[in-house]
């Protein structure tokens, strides 16, 4: 070769080297681009199969490889979870890879297989129906967490194993990218699942909370008591009201918004009396689960004070401490309680008065009896007779007082019948007018359509008398007007608070109203509230029993009683009596007509020995005989022993042990026809009712005069008893 030719050859060689280098550089640049594209795909894909297919496609296209797949073991087979075939629609894949029993999968590291290697590893290796082993294949482990047996497989029928080996590092880089992304996707999927679960859970909890809150809000807003949630986080003082229900707003007269800006102190009013410890202080000493329960005075927005029953407990809410307080307005309950207290006091005083009156009646009966006997024994001019007469007169006045005490106690003598109050007033007009001073005009305003009421005429007369005399006395010496008014009232509903004094609960219906009004001095509030108390009197000579008796009688008549009064203006007493006819009381048997002067034997049964004595003395002083028994049992025994001898039984109603009623029943068994006269200091309606059907022959109201006793004995005891009496 010429030097020129040599030179040319040299240049061509150098050019060839440069071209090779250039080609290698270009290929290197392409590889980097490919890795970029693969990274882009692994970055955007979220579906692992689609991501794998996209990566396989990029590797196959850019490295001119005809087939790529991601294989996973499934039994002896390997399944292509994703694949790319440059000449095939993806949907039509039906490739078969079956491992030999001896083959281990996945390979420990990336390998390139020649046909012999392929035959050793695979029992079946078929892509697109081509069963022949390819000239070269690459298997690269892709052990991502969920699928540790995964491998990438690349096959090309125009490549040699050596050419594949050159590409192997690049494919491994691709596998690394995929693996990282798949692990990443798996974590993301798990996170998303957790997130979703969390979202669902949160949504569920929120819904639960919402329902719960709605439920408690309804409870909170519909509780009839005031409910207050008060900040109590700092010790020493109870603070701002954080929450309040509608009932609280209504009770205290604030809007809820205003209430929730207030301090709890604004609702407190000074208590009624000194307390050992304040409500707040007691709240602070509470242990978990304990409550403070106390009656307090609270103040409304308008300044008015009312009693509340407060229950407080400390609660924890959102890490803060609160006082949860329930307050109930107990104004009405307090009023009812006070009325009840009054009724109870009236009743207990009544029982006391009744008891005293009963004993006094017995004693007075004895005094009057013994005095009567003494007067009969003494001659008209006998010294001391005048004194005995005065003693008897005083005893009679005492008897009137005990009658009033009994009336107050509601256990006085009752003679129930229908009666017209107008008639009763008119019959007593003369007497009433005589009790009213001349300078007082007496006005009668009587409703002519007044229906009858049921009652005891003499007791109701006592009521009218007491009220009229009371009224007249309150007017005193000055001129004034006293009026008595009757009205017929049809009440559809009764506000019992307007009729507080009788202690009865009135039911709607027809009533007769009696109103006694005076223009007298009137009463102070203090007097007005006590005016019906027994033994309370503003008069120098008053016994304090007149209005008490009125109250007792009206109570016993199931009526209503009210009083209005103003100092210097006057007072109005109002009585409401239910219209109606009671069952007729036991009809008294027609007394058997007996000749007077015959000697009788009377069995006297009474637990008081002085009563037995006075009766015996009275009877014996008039020629009658008596058998005395200190108890029902004794009396029954005596009647049993000598039934023929006894003409009449005088029986006390109220006795310890066997009572009067039961004794009467047994006496009648012993001697069915025996006349029995009952005597009692009080003959309550009930007692008379119980005696119904037992053929009571007579009734003596204690204290009775000797004459009453003798008349009863002489008219009732048979002169000649029936054969089988």
């Amino acid at each position, binding site marked *: 070769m010429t030097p020129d030719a040599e030179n040319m050859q040299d240049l061509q060689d150098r050019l060839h080297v440069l071209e090779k280098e250039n080609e290698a550089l*270009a290929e290197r640049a*392409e590889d980097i*681009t490919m890795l970029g*594209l693969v990274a882009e795909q692994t970055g955007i894909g979220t579906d692992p199969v689609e991501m794998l*297919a996209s990566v396989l*496609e*990029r590797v196959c*296209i*850019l490295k*001119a490889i005809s087939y790529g797949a991601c294989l996973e073991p499934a039994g002896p087979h390997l399944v292509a979870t994703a694949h790319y075939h*440059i*000449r*095939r*629609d*993806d949907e039509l894949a039906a490739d078969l890879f079956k491992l030999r029993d001896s083959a281990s999968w996945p390979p420990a590291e990336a390998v390139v297989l020649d046909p012999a290697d392929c035959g050793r590893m695979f029992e079946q290796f078929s892509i697109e129906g081509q069963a022949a082993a390819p000239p070269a294949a690459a298997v690269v482990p892709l052990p991502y967490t969920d699928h540790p047996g995964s491998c990438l497989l690349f096959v090309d029928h*125009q490549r040699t194993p050596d050419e594949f080996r050159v590409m192997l590092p690049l494919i491994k880089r691709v596998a690394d990218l995929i693996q990282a992304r798949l692990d990443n996707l798996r974590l993301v999927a798990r996170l998303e699942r957790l997130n979703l679960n969390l979202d669902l859970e949160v949504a569920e909890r929120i819904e639960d909370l919402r329902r719960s809150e709605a439920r408690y809000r309804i409870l909170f807003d519909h509780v009839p008591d005031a409910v207050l949630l008060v900040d109590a986080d700092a010790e020493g003082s109870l603070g701002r009201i954080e929450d309040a229900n509608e009932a609280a707003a209504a009770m205290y007269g604030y809007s809820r918004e205003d209430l929730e800006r207030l301090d709890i102190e604004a609702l407190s009013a000074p208590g009624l009396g000194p307390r050992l410890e304040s409500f707040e202080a007691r709240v602070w000493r509470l242990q978990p689960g304990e409550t403070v329960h106390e009656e307090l005075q609270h103040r409304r927005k308008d300044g008015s004070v009312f009693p509340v029953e407060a229950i407080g407990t400390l609660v924890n809410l959102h890490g803060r401490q609160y006082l949860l307080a329930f307050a109930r307005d107990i104004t009405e309950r307090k009023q009812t309680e006070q009325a009840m207290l009054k009724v109870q006091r009236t009743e207990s005083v009544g029982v006391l008065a009744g008891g005293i009156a009963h004993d006094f009646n017995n004693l007075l009966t004895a005094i009057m009896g013994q005095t009567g006997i003494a007067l009969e024994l003494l001659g008209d001019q006998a010294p001391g007779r005048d004194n005995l007469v005065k003693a008897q007169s005083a005893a009679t006045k005492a008897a009137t007082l005990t009658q009033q005490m009994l009336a107050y106690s509601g256990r006085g003598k009752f003679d129930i019948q229908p009666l017209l109050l107008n008639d009763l007033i008119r019959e007593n007009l003369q007497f009433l007018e005589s009790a009213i001073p001349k300078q007082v005009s007496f006005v009668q305003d009587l409703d002519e359509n007044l229906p009858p009421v049921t009652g005891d005429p003499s007791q109701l007369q006592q009521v009218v008398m007491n009220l009229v005399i009371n009224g007249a006395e309150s007017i005193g010496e000055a001129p004034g007007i006293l009026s008595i008014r009757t009205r017929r009232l049809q009440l559809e509903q009764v506000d019992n608070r307007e009729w507080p004094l009788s202690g009865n609960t009135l039911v709607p219906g027809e009533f007769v109203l009696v109103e006694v009004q005076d223009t007298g001095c009137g009463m102070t509030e203090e007097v007005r509230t006590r005016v019906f108390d027994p033994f309370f009197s503003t008069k120098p000579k008053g016994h304090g029993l007149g209005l008490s008796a009125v109250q007792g009688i009206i109570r016993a008549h199931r009526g209503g009683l009210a009083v209005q009064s103003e100092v210097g203006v006057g007072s109005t007493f109002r009585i409401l009596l239910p219209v109606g006819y009671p069952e007729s009381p036991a009809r008294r048997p027609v007394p058997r007509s007996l000749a007077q002067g015959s000697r009788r034997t009377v069995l006297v049964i009474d637990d008081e020995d002085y009563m037995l004595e006075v009766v015996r003395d009275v009877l014996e002083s008039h020629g009658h005989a008596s058998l005395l028994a200190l108890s029902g049992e004794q009396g029954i025994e005596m009647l049993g022993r000598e039934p023929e001898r006894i003409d009449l039984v005088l029986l006390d109603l109220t006795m310890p042990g066997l009572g009067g009623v039961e004794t009467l029943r047994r006496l009648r068994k012993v001697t069915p026809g025996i006349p029995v006269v009952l005597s009692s200091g009080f003959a309550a309606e009930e007692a008379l009712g119980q005696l119904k059907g037992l053929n009571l022959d007579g009734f003596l109201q204690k204290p009775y005069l000797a004459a009453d006793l003798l008349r009863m004995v002489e008219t009732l005891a048979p002169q000649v008893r029936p054969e089988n009496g």
Partner: protein
Amino acid sequence: MFQAAAQKIRIQGHDLAYRRQGLGSPLLLVHGITTYSFIWRNLLPELARNHDVVAVDLLGCGDSDMPLDQSYSIAAHVERLEAFTQALGLGPFGFVGHDIGGGIAQRFAVKHPDRLTHAVVMNGVAFDYWPVQPIITMRTPIIRQLAMAALDLGAFKLIVQRGVFHKERVTPELMSLFWKPMLTRLGRKAFLHFAESLDNHDLTDITAELRQTRIPFLILRGTEDVYLSAEIAHRLHQEIPGSRLVEIPEAGHFFQEDQPQRLVNELETFLGA
């Protein structure tokens, strides 16, 4: 973009999409690789004034079917287009082919001479200047560039930009037309299958026949076409008797984008002659 709506007709078991517009002597417009019938959109309304214009999407391109088991070779396209034009009822027609379409026009002219009145090769492949042997298709630089373009819009845009003289005309709208078939994996496979199917034997085989053709040939070349050298156009002009060569300045490989009106004028002049 197109006045004519895409239609489809079933040829040899697969649908071919095409647009047809105008009345007059029939004219078939055939695109090359990387494009489809959209490339004619600026010429078609003008040509439709005097011609019954049919712009076809070759099998595997545009809206036509993309079977991967069918050959997309020039020879296969020729036979498919013969069946297609028959099915459309076209009488002897003018064949305008761009790029690979120009190669198809040459083979069509020698295989079905009575079907053509004219043949136009615009920036077309010819002879063995198409540097492809099937066995190494995917490893040749141009195919590797196309492969990259199938996967990466940026790479595709480089190819388009190199093929257009007026660079400012490579707008996102134009790119989205080029890119549309690449949006699906099947579209990408079909595209690569198209590239791979090209076998220059289909053209080297007909060199002798081409010298005998009596069909009037127009050879158009954009002087700025960087993909196909001037030598191809010059040799075609030499080999085909009576052929006419027009070289258009300021026009790249995709000179439908650079000089649409000039092309219409040249075509009308040639077809009217």
